[in-house]
């Protein structure tokens, strides 16, 4: 097994070879005088300015997406999140072997305190979302472009790569234990070392999927990803007229998609070579001459490269990030520590696991539902009771929890239709009457829906010391007559 230093040297060498090969492919049989002439006749302004604007907004939205992805862990300011994203991109432009991904994870850890493994997983999820978004845009753009086998092949490759990864993540989200079991059983014959590796990767995938378990988060980050890459495509579109090409959304999107799949090939920092070759090829499929296509690729590359590298350098200076230390720490985090003992028991560490998250604050609806079952009480008591109910409901097995939430959604919908108001917007007496009708009515299914809420509400309320004291007081029946009989 080669040493880490040797492995890194091999990766850098492979990148350099990749760049050289693609540069050769892009430039072979090219008339460099014609390329120079194209450059001289180009009209970069105002188009490059528009492209910069698109790219800038796109980075802001990437920051917003990162903010959404980590919001269960921490409340990351939007600008900070954007700067973290940009630092990652800038580092990829300067360091080999996509070290920027590690730097980005490292900065995320520094800014949020989240574990490295989780930060790397979030980066993985972002990349997956990027891949799927690019694929969607490529398919859309291809539908409005001249058919080309090259485009088909790139789309198929992208579908296999990212579709396969997405499938694994979806399985990880929906049935994590099945995925873990499969990984364990399939790799068992290979020995503990390989099984540990497989389990580690699987755990990371499951962790990554955890942030997508909330449907609202999944939808938000998916939509943001699409918008991010539409803006990236807009950057490509904006540069087209600089070389006299039509301001075509399909053409720009095609160039963007193919280029971004192309830079998955190993290359030098900044994707020199693959970027230019694949961008050129995409345009050529639509009848753009090779010289113009290459000139265009160079300008687009410079546009984003200069902007993001300068922005990233500024952010690094601002945060005082020490790249070497960050990368070393991230690498160390990726490598599982050797066997250790815990309480005298030999254990082998596999991976960091996403901790369970429980919402501490009860929602407005749960407070209103709790109040409907309780005697009139202090808001604080109702909030405590509602928080307890929400915690308990969250502890239900997923299938029952989902059924409960579906039932409550149906309840809210029915109330809104029937009373032309949200449940929370109704007066307390009306809310009590509605809940009584549902929770104690003749339909067993509806009673079952409200059974956990009513049982937990009264349990939590009547366990409160002040309530027990009031009940035990000599005039408790009179007290109840006033407060307990709505």
């Amino acid at each position, binding site marked *: 097994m080669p040493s880490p230093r040797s492995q890194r040297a091999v990766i850098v060498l492979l990148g350099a070879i990749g760049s050289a090969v693609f540069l050769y492919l892009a430039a072979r049989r090219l008339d460099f005088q014609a390329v120079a002439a194209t450059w001289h006749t180009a009209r970069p302004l105002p188009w490059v300015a528009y492209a910069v604007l698109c790219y800038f907004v796109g980075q802001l939205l990437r920051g917003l997406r990162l903010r959404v992805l980590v919001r269960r862990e921490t409340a990351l300011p939007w600008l900070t999140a954007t700067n973290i994203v940009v630092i990652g991109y800038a580092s990829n432009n300067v360091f080999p072997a996509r070290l920027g991904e590690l730097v980005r994870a490292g900065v995320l850890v520094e800014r949020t305190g989240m574990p490295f493994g989780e930060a790397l997983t979030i980066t993985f999820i972002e990349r997956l979302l990027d891949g799927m978004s690019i694929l969607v845009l490529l398919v859309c753009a291809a539908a409005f472009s001249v058919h080309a086998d090259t485009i088909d092949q790139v789309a198929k490759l992208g579908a296999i790569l990212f579709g396969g990864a997405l499938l694994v993540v979806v399985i990880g989200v929906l*049935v*994590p*234990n*099945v995925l*873990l079991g499969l990984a*364990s*059983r399939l790799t*068992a*014959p290979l020995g*503990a070392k390989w*099984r540990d590796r497989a*389990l*580690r990767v699987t755990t990371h995938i499951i962790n990554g999927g955890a942030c997508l378990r909330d449907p609202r988060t999944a939808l938000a980050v998916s939509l943001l990803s699409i918008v991010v890459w539409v803006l990236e495509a807009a950057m490509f579109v904006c540069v087209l007229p600089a070389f006299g090409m039509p301001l075509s959304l399909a053409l720009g999107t095609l160039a963007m998609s193919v280029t971004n799949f192309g830079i998955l090939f190993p290359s030098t920092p900044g994707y020199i070579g693959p970027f230019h070759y694949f961008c050129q090829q995409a345009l050529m499929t639509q009848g753009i001459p090779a010289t113009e296509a290459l000139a265009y690729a160079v300008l687009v590359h410079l546009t984003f490269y200069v902007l993001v590298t300068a922005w990233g350098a500024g952010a690094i200076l601002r945060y005082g990030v020490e790249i070497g230390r960050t990368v070393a720490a991230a690498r160390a985090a990726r490598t599982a520590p050797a*066997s250790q003992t*815990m*309480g*005298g*028991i*030999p*254990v*082998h*560490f*596999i*991976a*960091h*696991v*996403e*901790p*369970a998250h429980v919402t501490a604050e009860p929602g407005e609806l749960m407070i209103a539902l709790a109040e409907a*079952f309780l005697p009139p009480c202090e808001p604080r008591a109702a909030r405590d009771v509602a928080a307890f109910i929400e*915690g*308990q409901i969250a*502890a*239900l*097995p*997923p*299938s*029952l929890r989902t059924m409960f939430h579906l039932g409550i959604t149906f309840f809210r919908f029915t109330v809104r239709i029937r009373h032309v108001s949200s449940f929370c917007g109704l007066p307390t007496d009306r809310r009590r009457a509605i809940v009584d009708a549902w*929770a*104690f009515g003749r339909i*067993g299914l509806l*009673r*079952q829906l409200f*059974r*956990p809420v*009513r049982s937990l509400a*009264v*349990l*939590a*309320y*009547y*366990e409160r010391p002040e309530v*027990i004291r009031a*009940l*035990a007081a000599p005039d408790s*029946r009179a007290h*109840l*007559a006033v407060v*307990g*009989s709505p």
Partner: protein
Amino acid sequence: MNAERVDVLVIGSGAGGAVTALELGSGGRGVCVLEEGARHELAQYGAGSVEAMQRLYRRRGMTPITGRVPIGYVEGACLGGSTEINSGFWHRTPREVLLRYQSQFDLEGATLEELAPHFEWAEQRLHVSLRGRSWPKSTEVFSRGIEAMGWSGQEVPRAASGCEDNNTCATGCPRGAKQGMSRAILPEAERAGARILTGCRVRMLLTSKRRVTGVLAEIEREPGAREMIRIDADHVFVCAGPTETPALLRRSGIKYHVGETLRIHPMLKVVARFPERIDAHESVLPLIQVKEFWPEVSLGGGFFTPGHLAMMLSDNWLTTRGEMASFRNMAAYYVAVRGTGDGHVRPSRVGDATTHLRYELSEEDHINLSHGLARLATLLLAAGAEEVFPTVHGIPTIRTEIDAIRWLDERLPRAGLSLTTVHAFSTCPIGERQDRCAADSFGKVFRWENLYVNDASMLPDSPGVNPQGTVMALARRNALRFKDTAS
């Protein structure tokens, strides 16, 4: 235990796991116990039900058994397992039950005589005894009713000598009177060399051919930081309880007669209001059980707090909520039936590592519950109760014996039943009948060389009594057998 592997890994620290750890640890084995829940000091026990549910119960007490009649089920998830939150009632397995195990499952080495030394061993360690002083009021009125009915009833011995009547059985005894495993067995096991890792949830067993090589588990190294770890072991005892043991085995691909036969004691609770003060919330739960109708039906007393009272009344809350003011005159009792329905345990496929429990109440269970309610209500009325409130939606409060005996002829409405249970078992039955059992008579899982089950899941069928005694006796017997055969 060498630097890389554990000799014996015990998963779970309840009645089965603790005994296994002690016996094997004191036999010189390198024993490691993995417990999902936390280790609590006595000072942390005895908090209110709300806090206790979050701290000591599996999934905060939210593990319902689904079926046409849903059944509330709770079990412990802390060091000591369910023994930390149960009543401490102690029964030796009835002879009839053991004979049935023998005849139906070919269970070897488990006659009353063969188990006697193991019961004695456990009873000595847990200081099992009768109360030895005057009964609390809730027991006294119950006894009055039994006497009036002329039925057979007896005080049940408890593993709680020195009980101070502080009504904390279900929330952990802060005085340490109740002899949960964390107090009675595990400290001795640790002194004997067993090591315990708490906060460690086993996700799956790692297997190679016909051997279990270790486990994959999650552990909280520090607050908020969970790690996936592997622990290698030569022998694995799964003692994770009647629901988690089969779930873990099935998640690990071990399914032969595993989790197919969930048995429970379905329980219907009632609240009785008496003319006199009972103050059940300040006392230990009723200590007498009626075995007149055993094995089909048992009658007894339940845990009582104002919160639990409200929960029991909440099935008919619109008409009963005003009764909360009389809580000092009330006490809770139950009808428990043997449970002849069918059930199963499955690890949840979707989402995190949860377990899905299903049980269909049999017609016989339904009849027994109805009859049991009639008898319990009659008994309570005979004891002087003015009203009896069953936890059944839509049926009237029982005020007269005529109201009560109605349920000897009629069936309680299934859709209105609010049933609960704290006794589950038989999900990995032991015995020599390979067509019915998951493991042999001593808990060795069929087809596996080094895998054992040793908790309530191994009981071949419903014992008809509180199962802790049976579990501990069988677990010790199995552990000693392992020691003998492995050495």
